[in-house]
């Protein structure tokens, strides 16, 4: 099943690249859900010969939380907000893609000198998880909208999850579960904050416009 794990790793990095180059928030959230789906199926590919209850548990929690719950919260958050498109990223989309490609190369180069405890199923997991973390970080720092920044954060977490999956046999599940819970709470708070910001701004805009009219 190594080839399936390899292909999943490649697809995860590829989808991060797609999110990096996209400007529509709705499409970005969908791509993130697909990425999480691939990630959620990864434990099955890795232990195809003997699937334990632990694999099923991890996979199920990931699928419910990241494929269903987090995207629906994000969709709910942007429903009433005019945040449909990332308009002015700090770095343009074209240069983002080129930088993204360089980041992937950098991640692979760094991975050359990283040694994991135990033997990983596929040697692509480490560089791909590092690439995903860095690409998520890049999305977080170069985008200006709250939702897209949170998406960058979620992609970073996906990269960390990929890394944790490779250390599956030597790392307790609890840590990963803790991270997932953190993410979930963070997304939830963000959704509430975004909605409140929007309400506040709508109010303030209404209160400002008549004043401008008076000054002329």
């Amino acid at each position, binding site marked *: 099943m190594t*080839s399936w794990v*390899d*292909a999943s*790793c*490649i*697809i995860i*990095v*590829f989808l991060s*690249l*797609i999110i990096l*180059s996209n400007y529509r928030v709705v499409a970005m959230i969908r791509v993130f859900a697909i990425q999480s789906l691939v990630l959620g199926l990864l434990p099955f590919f890795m232990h195809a010969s003997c699937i334990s209850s632990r694999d099923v548990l991890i996979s199920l929690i990931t699928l419910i939380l990241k494929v269903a719950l987090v995207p629906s919260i994000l969709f709910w958050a942007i429903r009433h907000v005019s945040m449909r498109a990332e308009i002015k990223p700090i770095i343009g*989309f*074209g240069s983002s*893609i*080129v930088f*993204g*490609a360089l980041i*992937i*190369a950098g991640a*692979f180069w760094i*991975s050359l000198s990283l040694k994991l405890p135990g033997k990983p199923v596929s*040697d*692509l997991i480490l*560089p791909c998880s590092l690439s995903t973390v860095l690409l998520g970080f890049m999305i977080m720092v170069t985008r200006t909208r709250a939702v897209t920044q949170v998406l960058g954060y979620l992609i970073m977490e996906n990269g960390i999850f990929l890394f944790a999956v490779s250390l599956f046999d030597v790392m307790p599940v609890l840590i990963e579960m803790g991270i997932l819970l953190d993410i979930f709470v963070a997304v939830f708070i963000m959704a509430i904050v975004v909605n409140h910001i929007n309400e506040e701004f709508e109010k303030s805009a209404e209160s400002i416009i008549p004043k401008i009219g008076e000054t002329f």
Partner: protein
Amino acid sequence: MNIVFLILVHWLIVLTLAPLFTGVITKVKAFFAGKKGPSVFQAYFDLQKLFQKSSVYSSTTTWIFRAAPIVNLAAVLVLSLLVPVGVLKAPVQFAGDIFLAAYILGLARFFMIAAGLDTGSSFEGMGASREAFFSCLTELALFMNFITLSLVARSISLSTMIGADFPLSWKLMGPILLLVAASFFIVILAENARIPVDDPDTHLELTMIHEVMILDHSGVDLAYMFYAAIIKLFVFAGILVPIIFPIQTGNITVDMLVFLGAMLVVSIMIGVVESVMARLRLNRVQNLLLIAFALAFFGFVVKMWKG
């Protein structure tokens, strides 16, 4: 066997099969639109009609305008000799022929752009400018794909690279081939003026790239341009098919059937993409082409990592 005979057989097959490939794409698009659509042989009828007509030339045009269709068709026919078609090996192959392939495409494009400018119409100049800009970026992705493939196959000959002589193994090189195939598919769409980049059906002045440059050509000249575009699409698909389906059984009939089936799958894929996607806004096209480059570059990095 005599090389001349091989070349003639190769051309015969390419010339007869290529219009059918375009016909299948049109049929798939018609199916998605809920229409009956023209017959899969429509391209043959169009070509026959155009070959019977005579050309009209504007008085502002020079010999460049008349040469462009001939150069285009000739270039594409030479390109087709470098690419294997099913069980037929490429009649011409030598180390480094990938550069010849890329520059033949460049030559054809140069004459097409020059002919567009030669008409003196600002409209065609606009199309020429777009073509020049986008093909710069497409060529980047194309070369990156060629570099990755040549590293995988340890050869810089196009037919060896795409596994005509030994099938590339998906088991060993799966991730790399996945990236190259995805990237090359985008290159096919961009090079052949298909939908996310250019729309082959519309004549809207704001969006055309390929169609606008051949707007002043008529009759036999237009037939040449049309045929060249069809063969180019067929040849590009012929490069992609051995990458996606590197199946070789040794039995000539089975291999040919596998190849034809794979070509059918590729044409259906192109038709589906054209049906479900909208044309990209002109200032977003370069992002798509850069993604194609990034994918090929990623494949290159993975290849270096795997050693």
